């Protein structure tokens, strides 16, 4: 398809990149990325096995009970890297297993669509075997009979890479019957999606996997009780699962200590920067690394501009100010600051950029990606978009900001069916708190008495 103009095409073709060289990445300190090649080429089965790959499958499946595996995860305090930060070990311990329960499913959430998030792509494109290994271990712990990798349809390269790896793993006996002589059977199916951000919500993802409209499900029952086709089902993010082999190989304490005294959350995390930083990209760093350090690695803001605000981990996290850069980036610290760690990929906003415009863009995204199930999300978010568009154009009316405040409050946690609308409300609420004057500047007219002034329909 791309014949004829190799120059530009190659220059702008997107490649996932990690800004750390092999010399910096060690097995002892970079469990997620130490096997990656500086060239960005895919780590195939031979490369992976040559660097200790799949050894834990052998030892864990033959030497540890599923409960041992879960205990290790709990001790390591591995928290969900998809953004919610729920303890992976605790989640696994709640899966129904044993007599009277059917073997269920382990689903890898590879539907990376959170605005500002580009980490799982790297892992899947360049090192799919780590994910497969993590899934085998997860399946063992949860007694899953089959795994699904739910991959967003646009990740073409990741799909090819995973498909190839699945075949390699099957050939090598890492998938299929009697894995590593343990008597444990497990295989993985790659499922590619057809769009829609909401598929990243674990229960919506299950509905989508079942070939249905991706409306989330009510919890309880949790997927571990009744998930895909009513069977016990575990859904974990790519990065979460990629952490499992190293935890089992080196032990929970080792993992916990990777973050040192920076954080009570264990291990490392793929952190990154996007927006107008000098050098956007990804780094594997200990949990609790500060935003300042990451922004420093990214070379600061482009062209020496000033940072105005930043999103700590995707579009559904609350805006933070430059003064928050010194906080350790972990789930609790960022949570205590009124935001969420989310996916841990920073989006930077510079001094000259409009917060109202950014919020308009974010709310357009969330409104469009609402599944349409519950009222506040379906009908409240489009209203916020229209108000923000009006304010952005200076066509806001008195009272608009108060409506936005109401929406930010009443689209919050517990009020909607799932976390989608609360994710949209959080940046809005923080923006109204920190940058209210920018919104006020958009109020261009008084509230017109009904019937006297024509309603300004415009394009909204």
């Amino acid at each position, binding site marked *: *398809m791309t014949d004829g103009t190799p120059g530009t095409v190659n220059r702008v073709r*997107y490649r996932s990149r990690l800004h750390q060289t092999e010399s910096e990445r060690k097995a002892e300190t970079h469990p997620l990325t130490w096997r990656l090649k500086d060239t960005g080429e895919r780590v195939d089965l031979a490369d992976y096995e040559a660097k200790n790959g799949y050894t834990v499958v052998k030892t864990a499946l033959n030497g540890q009970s599923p409960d041992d595996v879960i205990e290790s995860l709990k001790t390591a305090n591995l928290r969900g890297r998809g953004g919610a930060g729920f303890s992976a070990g605790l989640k696994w311990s709640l899966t129904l297993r044993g007599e009277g329960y059917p073997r269920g499913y382990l689903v890898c959430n590879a539907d990376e669509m959170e605005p500002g998030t580009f980490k799982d792509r790297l892992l899947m494109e360049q090192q799919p075997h780590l994910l497969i290994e993590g899934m085998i271990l997860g399946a063992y712990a949860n007694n899953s009979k089959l795994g699904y990798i739910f991959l967003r349809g646009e990740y*073409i390269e990741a799909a090819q890479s995973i498909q190839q790896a699945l075949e390699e793993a099957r050939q090598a006996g890492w998938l299929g019957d009697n894995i590593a002589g343990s008597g444990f059977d497990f295989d993985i199916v790659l499922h590619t999606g057809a769009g829609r951000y909401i598929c990243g919500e674990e229960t919506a993802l299950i509905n989508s996997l079942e070939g249905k409209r991706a409306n989330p499900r009510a919890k309880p029952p949790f997927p571990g009780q009744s998930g895909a086709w009513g069977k016990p089902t575990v859904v974990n993010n790519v990065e979460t699962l990629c952490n499992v082999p190293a935890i089992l190989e080196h032990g929970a304490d080792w993992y916990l200590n990777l973050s040192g005294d920076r954080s009570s959350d264990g291990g490392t995390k793929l952190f990154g920067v996007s927006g107008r930083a000098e050098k956007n990209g990804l780094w594997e760093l200990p949990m609790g690394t500060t935003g300042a350090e990451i922004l420093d690695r990214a070379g600061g803001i482009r062209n020496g501009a000033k940072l105005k605000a930043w999103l700590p981990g995707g579009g559904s996290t609350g805006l933070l100010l430059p003064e928050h850069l010194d906080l350790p980036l972990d789930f609790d610290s960022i949570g205590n600051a009124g935001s969420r760690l989310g996916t841990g990929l920073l989006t930077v906003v510079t001094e000259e950029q409009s917060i109202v415009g950014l919020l308009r863009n974010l709310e357009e995204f969330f409104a469009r990606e609402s599944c349409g199930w519950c009222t506040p999300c379906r009908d409240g978010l489009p209203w916020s978009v229209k108000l923000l568009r009006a304010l952005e154009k200076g066509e806001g009316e008195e009272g608009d900001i108060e409506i936005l405040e109401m929406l930010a409050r009443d689209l919050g946690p517990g009020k909607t069916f799932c976390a989608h609308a609360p994710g949209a409300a959080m940046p809005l609420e923080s923006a109204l708190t920190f940058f209210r004057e920018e919104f006020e500047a958009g109020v261009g007219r008084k509230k017109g008495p009904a019937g006297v002034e024509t309603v300004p329909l415009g394009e909204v």
Partner: protein
Amino acid sequence: MSEQADKTLATDGFELHPDDRAAIQAELGHFEQPQAACIEALKIVQRRHGWVPDAAIPAIARELGVGPAAVEGVATFYSLIFRQPVGRHVILVCDSSSCYLTDYEMLRDALFDHLGIQYGQTTPDNRFTLLPVCCLGACDSGPAMMIDDDTYGPVAPKDLAELLEGYS
């Protein structure tokens, strides 16, 4: 296939291509229930025709043994299932926050200008269809876009002409 031919297909009855039927049947083996193969079946039909014609909906429903409304419900939910004819190449422009903060709107406007169409439209020569898409996960290289299976970023307006030339 020409747009005209596809429009005819949409109204004059529709039969699944034998290869597509086989592919759909193969998908069924991956899941507990036939409905689960619905999204993949739609994608299979879309790969052949570029989009999913109206008459394909009951045909897929029959193949899966589910109701037509269930298939249409899925077909209209997912943004990457096209229920209207598209051009030979589909351009997906990431409009999410990181790209927005790295001049996505300039790229979008340049595409509008260059192609002479807006979102949701197809160029008169049936070459390109332009659509916005959720964050493409190429945030470190915004503004990003996809043309068919290829992801690009950062794309400056000046790159567009040469980039699009590769897709005839």
